[in-house]
C-alpha cells in the first residue's frame, strides 16, 4: 500500500514541479548552478571511469577471442557496440545515481531537516519548482556527458588494444567503423534522456518527502540510490525491448 502511495505522490510531485514557475531571473541562476554541480562536476569521474572501463572491455574481448578465423578488428567492433549501447548510457547512469542522485537527495533532504523548504513554502514559493525543476533542466544536458563517456570509452579501448598488443591501430579503427548503425546512437540518447529524468526526479522525491533528522537523510540517500538504479535497469530493459527488438 505504501508503494502505491509513494508512486502516486511521485507523479503528483512531477505535476507540481511544472506549476507556478519561479521568476526567470532567479531560475536562470539556479539552472546554471545545477549545471555546474550535476553536469560539469561529474565530468571528471565519468571521464576516468569511461576511459578505463573502455580499456577493460577491449582487453576482455581480446582475451576471449582465441579462434584465428575471427578477424582482429572484431575487438574494436565489440568495444564500440558495448560502449555505445550499454556501457555509456546505462553503466554511467548507475554511477550517476550514486554520485548525482545522492547529492540531490542529501541536499534537498538537508533543506527539509533544517526547515529551509518550510521557509520557501511560507514565502509562497512553489518549493518543488524552485528545487527540482532546475535539476531537471540541468540534467537535460546529460546526453553531453554520455557523449563524452562514449568517446573516452572507445579511446580507452583503443589505448588498451594498441599498447596491450591485442591488435593494431588500423584493425581497431576498422572495427569501430564496421557495420555502424546510426540508430544505435539515437537509441542510446533516447535511453539517456529517460535516465536523466529518472536521475532528476527520484532522488528529489526521496529528499523532498523525507522526515526526520540527519540519520534519515543518510537513509533517504541510500534508498534513493537503490530505487534510481532499479528504475534505470528496468527502463533499460523496457526501452531496449521497444527500440531494438
Amino acid at each position: 500500500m505504501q508503494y502505491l502511495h509513494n508512486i502516486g505522490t511521485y507523479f503528483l510531485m512531477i505535476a507540481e514541479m511544472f506549476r507556478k514557475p519561479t521568476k526567470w531571473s532567479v531560475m536562470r541562476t539556479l539552472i546554471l548552478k545545477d549545471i555546474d554541480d550535476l553536469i560539469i562536476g561529474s565530468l571528471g569521474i565519468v571521464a576516468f571511469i569511461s576511459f578505463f572501463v573502455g580499456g577493460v572491455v577491449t582487453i576482455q574481448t581480446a582475451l576471449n577471442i582465441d579462434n584465428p578465423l575471427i578477424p582482429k578488428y572484431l575487438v574494436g567492433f565489440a568495444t564500440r557496440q558495448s560502449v555505445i549501447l550499454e556501457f555509456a548510457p546505462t553503466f554511467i547512469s548507475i554511477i550517476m545515481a550514486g554520485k548525482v542522485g545522492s547529492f540531490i537527495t542529501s541536499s534537498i533532504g538537508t533543506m527539509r531537516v533544517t526547515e529551509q523548504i518550510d521557509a520557501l513554502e511560507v514565502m509562497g514559493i512553489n518549493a518543488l519548482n524552485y528545487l527540482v525543476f532546475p535539476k531537471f533542466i540541468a540534467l537535460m544536458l546529460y546526453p553531453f556527458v554520455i557523449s563524452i563517456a562514449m568517446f573516452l570509452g572507445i579511446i580507452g579501448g583503443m589505448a588498451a588494444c594498441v599498447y596491450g598488443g591485442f591488435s593494431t591501430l588500423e584493425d581497431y579503427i576498422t572495427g569501430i567503423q564496421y557495420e555502424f548503425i546510426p540508430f544505435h546512437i539515437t537509441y542510446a540518447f533516447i535511453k539517456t534522456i529517460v535516465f536523466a529524468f529518472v536521475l532528476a526526479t527520484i532522488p528529489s522525491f526521496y529528499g523532498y518527502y523525507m522526515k526526520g533528522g540527519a540519520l534519515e537523510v543518510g537513509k533517504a540517500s541510500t534508498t534513493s540510490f537503490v530505487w534510481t538504479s532499479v528504475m534505470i535497469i528496468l527502463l533499460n530493459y523496457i526501452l531496449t525491448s521497444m527500440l531494438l527488438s
Partner: protein
Amino acid sequence: MIEVNNIEKSFGDAHILKGISTSFEKGKTSLVIGQSGSGKTVFLKCLLGLFTPESGTISYSGKIYSELSDDEKRNLRAEMGMVFQGSALFDSMTIAENVMFPLRMFTKQSKSEMEDRVNFVLNRVNLPDAHNKMPSEASGGMQKRVAIARAIVNNPKYLFCDEPNSGLDPKTAIVIDNLIQEITDEYGIITVINSHDMNSVMEIGEKIVFLKDGYKAWEGSKETIFKTDNEAVTNFVYSSELFKKVRRMYIEENE
C-alpha cells in the same frame, strides 16, 4: 487582525488542536506558550497555512484562508515573515543573499534598490558588516538576527516566530526579544511568537495565549499573568523558584 475561530487539527488518532479560538492584533507582540507537545507548533503551522485545520477558520484581515484560491494563498504568504526555530537560512547563500531572497522573488526592484534595502534591514538588526559571511560562519544569535532581517525585508504584514530564543544565551535572547518587539511597534506588524521562554513572556508578552493538551487554557497579557489563579498557567509559568519569587514580589508591590 488574525482571527482564529474554533480550529481543530488531528494527525491520525492524535487530536492535537481542540477548538482553539483567539485573535492577534496589529502592532502587538503575541506569545503562544505551553509545554512541549501542547500543540504550539501545529497551531503556528496552521496560522502559516502549512497545515490545514479539519474544522474552524483562520482569517487574515477579514479574508478566510480556506476560502482563498491557490494564487491568493500564495500572495497572502508573501505578506508573511517567518523566523524558524533553527533560523532556516539558505546555507548555499551569503547572509546578504539570504536577506535579499524575498525581494528577488517577489519584487521588481533593481539590484541597487535591493542592496539598499538589504543594507537598511541588516543595519536595523545590528549586523552592518555581515553581508558576505555564509550562515555557517555566523553565531546562533547572528543567524536569528539574519532570519529576522529576511522576515521583515519585504515589509510583511504578519511576522511569525517559532521559539526565536531557543539555543541562545540569556543576554542574546533578550536582544532578540526586544528587536522583535521594536520591529512590531515600528512597522505595525501582527507578530505571533511560539515560546516557552518565561523571560520572553515577562519582557514582550503584550498578549499571551496558553495552550494545554491542545486546548486554549488561558489568555491574557504579561500584566495579568502575574495575577491569574488559573492553576494550569501558574503550574507552567511559575514552576521555577525564581519565577515564584518574581510573582510574589510583583503581587506585594501592587497590593
